[in-house]
């Protein structure tokens, strides 16, 4: 009897180790980054390539507005944005801008600490453009959504 209980206990332990967590009831939605802009931003949509040109400093004027790109210091969204849109590491991106400013001057992206700071800047500054998680945008009014990109 004791031997049978011991076997059952060991089988139970083995099941706990190998089974892992219970599967979710439904798949989690894929994370998406939203490119947002000030309401006065003069276009209503952008392609991923156009966003990349903006954050590379090659597209600086939209109609008559000077584009003011905004970055986030939060590593999760910044890394996802750089990987998905820019195809660059954080170090490569910073190096690109350091070189670009030396080569031709210009206006580097403004670095903000939090999504709230990004939204405040977007609401305040004409021609500003930034990126947020999709759920952060759904809570905001007064922003123009230009592009939604699934994170890769």
């Amino acid at each position, binding site marked *: 009897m004791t031997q049978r209980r011991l076997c059952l206990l060991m089988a139970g332990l083995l099941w706990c180790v190998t089974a892992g967590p219970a599967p979710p009831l439904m798949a989690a939605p894929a994370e998406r980054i939203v490119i947002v802009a000030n309401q006065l931003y003069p276009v209503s949509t952008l392609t991923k*390539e156009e966003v*990349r*040109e903006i954050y*590379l400093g*090659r*597209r*600086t*004027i939209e109609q008559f*507005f*000077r584009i003011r790109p905004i970055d986030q210091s939060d590593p999760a969204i910044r890394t996802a944005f750089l990987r998905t849109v820019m*195809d*660059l*590491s954080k*170090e*490569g991106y*910073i*190096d690109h801008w*350091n*070189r670009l*400013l*030396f*080569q*031709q*001057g*210009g*206006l580097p992206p403004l670095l903000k600490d939090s999504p709230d700071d990004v939204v405040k800047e977007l609401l305040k500054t004409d*021609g500003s453009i930034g990126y947020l998680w999709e759920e952060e945008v759904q809570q905001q009014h007064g922003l123009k959504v230009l592009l939604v990109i699934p994170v890769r």
Partner: protein
Amino acid sequence: MRITPLPSQRKTGHGGRRLCGWLALLAPLAITALLIPSPGEAFELRGFGDVTFTKSDAPGSDVPGATDHHGSFTLGQVDLYITQPVSDHIDLLAELSIESDPSTSETTIDVERLQISYQAKNWLVVRAGRFHNILGYWNITFHHGRQIQTTIDRPRMLAFEDRGGFLPIHLVGLWVGGYVPAGPMLLDYGVMAGNGPKITGVNSPLGGSLDPNNISDNSGNKAVSFELTLHPMALHNAGVGICGNFSRIEGFDNTTGHQVANVNQQILCGEAHYVTESLELLAEYYALFDQDKWTTKLGHFINHSWYAQAAYTFAGRYVPYVRYEHTSVDEGDPYMTMLNIVDTFRTILGFRYNLSAASSLKAEARFVSNPAPSGNALAGNGHEFAVQWSFWF
């Protein structure tokens, strides 16, 4: 700071007068900038520096220690730059270099670049000031910042005018350019017009040197440059481009100051580059078509110059690299003769260690061959070894 002059270094001169001239050029731009409403942001001053040790027995080397065989330390340029948007559409950029003048050994301040730009559209940016000429990739990418270039030095063909260069590296005037989307490609174009260069110090023992005519133009013919570069949208770090420069260059005797030459010059060039965070592939080609307009021979001459460079970064720090350079001079070309440029082959093998993103150690071995006619002081073969500590602040 005073440093003993070295016989291998070329004459440039005009330290004090150059500074005064630059101040005269700087003043109107500074006043313009002050009159423009500023958003109140502070100027940020950044820069580059380096210390290099070179030992060379190569003939015609322009590095200190080339002729004395015992090697020398060289304090590189202290290169300072400022960039600042002063309004929604107007930007300023200045690059100033503090360096020892090779001819006088006195420390001088050179305004290497000074430009004010108006961005009307993505495809229309108008700039005025002093620029690096839009020739090829290297000259408009690395400027005077040795930390951001992989190697210790620029390719020999792209040497600065006051270091024995034969290409018009700088230009004072106007620059119109921009980016134009073209389907799956992005077209980067530029047109420059400004003072054409002249050659001073012709018939001096070390040859004459190109003078970009920063303050005034000695002739009415302006130099014109152009560039067209295609970047694939899907491959933003790659590009293929063509470029050119058209000018008339007069040469002036070292002792009398009289004009002794007049050359019509067309430069046609092309470049291809692919630069990722780990791989760097660069290649540039220049053809110089010179027409002698001074002597009765009225000769036509064609010179070729090219380089190819490859580097690969391992683990973000270790960068072995190689570069091959070749310059072929058409014998009798008055332009190349005045500047004392001869056929040259250079092979460079190097290794760079990135101490950080802002500082690097580099070591190079260079194999130099100058198959110039016998009797020419620059003829012969030789080696150079160089080590550099470069930084960015």
